[in-house]
């Protein structure tokens, strides 16, 4: 029963949403025969219900984060000071946001107002931290490219040549280096070659991956709708 009920609900909702996707009418509401009206109703309201549930997921996520990190700090598990920092940051930012400190008061007061503490925390701590973390990628990519791009095989040579063309073609340096190329041979310009690599060989690979994923998702969906796939029933 624990497995059956979630599967039946999942199948029912899934089939209903598929029918709705094809049966509901785009555009203004009102009128129509009953199945179409029902599909309209489902189409109109399912997204809203989902969004209400999504808000509760934040509460669940916050509670889960608190539970795991409090336990880690309380039992002095390895790396517990990081958990302490996480807890202080989480509770601090939550309090600043919930109490709308420094910003316009009231439920409608926006926490991103220039004077609000929430915006100050964002500008002074969150933004520089994320920007720094992302900027470090430039160093790691340089090191990784130097070590990984080696002419070990003909395939590696093609990859290396493509990397050269795209890296140059995506910068003004490529445009400058291509300036001597006569207009009749414009297709040999580095920027043109870069666009060609992105639009033809790369795109062929991307489409193959996309179509493969779509077929896989369709197969998986059919299994779930038929009650043969794994459905997370909250520990059922």
């Amino acid at each position, binding site marked *: 029963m624990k497995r059956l009920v979630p599967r039946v609900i999942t199948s029912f909702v899934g089939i209903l949403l598929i029918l709705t996707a094809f049966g509901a009418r785009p555009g203004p509401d009102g009128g129509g025969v009953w199945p179409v009206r029902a599909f309209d109703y489902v189409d*109109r309201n399912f*997204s809203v219900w989902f969004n209400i549930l999504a808000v509760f997921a934040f509460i669940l996520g916050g509670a889960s984060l608190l539970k795991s990190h409090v336990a880690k700090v309380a039992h002095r598990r390895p790396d517990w000071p990081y958990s302490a920092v996480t807890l202080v940051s989480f509770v601090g930012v939550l309090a600043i946001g919930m109490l709308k400190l420094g910003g316009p008061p009231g439920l409608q007061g*926006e926490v991103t107002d220039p004077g609000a503490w929430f915006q100050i925390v964002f500008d002074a701590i969150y933004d520089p931290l*994320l920007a720094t973390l992302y900027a470090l990628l430039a160093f790691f990519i340089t090191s990784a*490219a130097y070590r990984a791009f080696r002419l070990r095989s003909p395939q590696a040579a093609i990859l290396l040549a493509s990397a050269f063309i795209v890296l140059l073609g995506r910068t003004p340096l490529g445009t400058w280096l291509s300036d001597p190329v006569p207009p009749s041979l414009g297709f040999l310009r580095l920027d043109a070659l870069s*666009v060609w690599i992105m639009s033809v060989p790369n795109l062929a690979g991307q489409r193959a991956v996309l179509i493969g994923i779509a077929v896989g998702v369709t197969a998986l969906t059919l299994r779930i709708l038929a009650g043969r796939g794994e459905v997370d029933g909250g520990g059922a």
Partner: protein
Amino acid sequence: MNGAARGDVLQRLGRLDRRWLYLALFACLAATLWRQPLFRDGLSTFSRPVFERIEALPPGAPVLVSLDYSPASAPEVEPMALALTRHLLLRGARPVFVTLYPEGNNMLQRLRDQAIDADFPESREGRDWVALGYKAGRQMVINALRQDLATMYSADLRGAPIDSLPALAGVRRLDDFAIILALSSGTPGLKEWILYGGDPTGTPVAGGCTGIGAPEFLAYFPGQLVGLLGGLKGASEYEAALADRYPERAFPRRAQLAMGPQTVAHALILLFLVLGNLSYLRPRRRSPGRREGRTA
């Protein structure tokens, strides 16, 4: 230098300590950031349709702008948001800002400071543009907007009811917008706007993304996606086109200035790729022992 010594040098060039790479990159980036060279740029196959679409918008056209990025990708995506917002306001369009990212409201505040308040002080919130902000629910928010804007947003970020906003006059659902501009750095983002917003309603979708994400979106171009600003290069192209089209407005050229460090970094990576492969290019002698081993 004899052959053995040359080979030794090539071997060492192929095994440089990563700290030398970091130091070289840091020095080059610092020097370029200090000098701030400005390179000329032009629209590409992918960015031109975005510029032309916005240039062709009639005055007062409502445009949905979704800011789906965080500070991590802001150096690449934010210049696009700034340039597109400036272009929309120059054309007299009505940008309506939403976001599917929790950090989106903060990014919207920065956009308001840097592009709207700084360059268009005469524009009025609610009349010329609207900030609706963040809603939880990822792609389901798009699905709800497709049906009715009011199901998701009863008021703008200031708390003004959406029915009272002149900028939203005649806008009830997604297909009332002239175009959807999605600036994204991941999921949910441009792809979700195409699949859940553009495809079902027929509303044109254009947008921008990080450089690393651009190849994924080319599969949708030019049918489901009318144009794409790919990475910092795309933003730089758009800024350059805006400056050429409206020379009387001297907007900051953040992406174009950032192309200097990016160009130098790319050139340095290429230089290291060459150094790393020099040892592979030298002629090698066959090892008789290995050959014998194979035969055996």
